[in-house]
């Protein structure tokens, strides 16, 4: 715990080259293009899967580089992972209802 307190986040100690930011920006633009393109292709239920997948990758890039998570303390990383963990709880426990709701109609 003491070690955690001593870690100190100093944004100036992690100078990121402008080129990296530009690369990330370009990647985000490419993914946006793919999103637009994928929306025009008929993939059935996979349309939404593809859209969400691309959005997740883009979000991850923004959080890691633009929001400096990659260079942050472990405590900050734990905080972000905690948020994802609770998002998984929201999805998975809601799914216990959605995936099994049809089973119960056979009981009625």
């Amino acid at each position, binding site marked *: *715990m003491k070690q*955690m307190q001593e870690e100190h986040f100093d944004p100036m100690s992690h100078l990121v080259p402008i080129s990296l930011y530009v690369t990330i920006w370009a990647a985000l633009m490419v993914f946006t293009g793919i999103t637009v393109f994928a929306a025009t292709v008929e993939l059935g239920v996979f349309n939404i899967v593809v859209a969400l997948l691309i959005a997740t990758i883009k979000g991850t890039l923004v959080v890691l580089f633009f929001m400096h998570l990659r260079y942050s303390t472990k405590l900050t990383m734990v905080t972000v992972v*905690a948020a994802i963990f609770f998002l998984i*709880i*929201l999805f998975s*426990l*809601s799914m*216990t*209802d959605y995936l099994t*709701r049809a089973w119960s109609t056979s009981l009625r």
Partner: protein
Amino acid sequence: MATAVQTVERENYLNSDYGIKSWLLTTDHKRIALLYLVSITAMFWIGGFFAMLIRLELLTPAGDLVSSDTYNKLFTMHGIIMVFFFLIPSVPATLGNFLIPLMVGAKDLAFPRVNLLSWYIYMVGAITALTAMVMGGVDTGWTFYTPFSTTYSNTHVMGAAIGIFITGFSSILTGLNFIVTIHRMRAPGMTWRRLPLFCWANYAAALIMVLGTPVVAITLLLVALERAFNIGIFNPQLGGDPLLFQHLFWFYSHPAVYIMILPGMGVINEIVTCFSRKRVFGYEFVALASIAIAVLGFLVWAHHMFVAGISVYAALVFSLLSYLVAIPSAVKVFNWTATLYKGSIRYETPMLYAFGFIGLFTVGGLTGVFLASLGVDVHVHDTYFVVAHFHYVMVGGMVMAYMAGLHFWWPKITGRMYPEAWAKLSALLVFVGFNTTFLPLFIVGYMGLPRRYHAYPPEFQVLNVLSTAGASILAVGYVLPMIYFLWSLRYGEPAPPNPWNAVGLEWMTPSPPPTHNFDETPIVTWEAYDYEHQPQEEVTVGH
């Protein structure tokens, strides 16, 4: 006659600067706490006014005082105001804001400007919601269930939802500030195991605020999108799923119950230890129980939906998980009781409220176990049994704890003592009034009287009259503190730095504290609640 020397008051956060601007632009956590105190007190009275109208209507079986439509609006606005604008910010935004920096030995919260911003956001949200109410009100119930809220209700759903959406951000910012402050700004020697349990409890509540509030904010945004643009999310006619709304809504709103109750539990730890002169029994377990409640609180939400048509298999899982919350809650109640054992107990006002809390919270918590049970829930769902249950937790528990905390720290906050005899009377009135109001509701609910109707069969009248009579006693119990607290600001005895002989850093600074809290950064070498070993003189040393 006081001499000139004696009348010169020590510089403190109240007299360091004057004028309305010095308050509206302050970044001092103590002043922001008072801004919040004034705001949420106003909201409490507005919400209380609606409650009184509800109880007056229910005095007679016929719907004679208000129409059914007005009644729907009354209980909706009572719920919205009390939940989102009073209970959720109550202890964290007032006592938490004031005390957390003092308790950890810091000069302020980690982000003082963000703290002020959170109050402004709260005010914008509150005014938006109040405007919606003045313009005609909302009738969806505080839960905004779809598809009624998105498709059928002709009332000001959008205004109220936007008000709550905005206020959510104030809650997130407060939570964020608490988390960072408790991690980063503890005084030397203030380890996690020496941290007052009030901080642990607020830390746990802050986790829920940060993790849960975005979900309800997005959910209300989806309601607005469906209502405004007919995008099918919740309305089955548009291809949506109405139960999705309930999943998303309760994913936040059930943990929100713990945002409300956890800080109250934190208050009780401070008071029970101080007025029984003992270290809290099982410190680590009480601290971890707060975190356990925060985490388990996220796993139980669908117990609000047992009869809404969810899968019975999911209901089984959620029922089981709901029982689990009883464990850390019971750990707390048992540990407070064990703390009292062989303590030298003093019955001052904060302790009276704390006793009230322990008893009433236990009743509220145990009836929650009934409701978590699938079979019983089918019988009592949407009856007054549920109303009684959550009022025992929210009012009997949380408001009692809030009142306990206000009395306990009032001398620290204002530098004045309140009149003890009047305060004891008010604590008694609140306890008697509360039980007279809500105990009959368990009975009418169990007999099958559904909630949210303005008229009811005549055989339920006796218990309803009892309940309304209780509500008027309760109202007197809340008006009294309002009067004597205001009175004490001018006429109360000046408070010493540590009127209760309590331990804790907040008592080692003058009352009211100086703007920068401590003249020197304190160095902590003792455990929290070390009442048995710490010599009293050392504890009461002021500056």
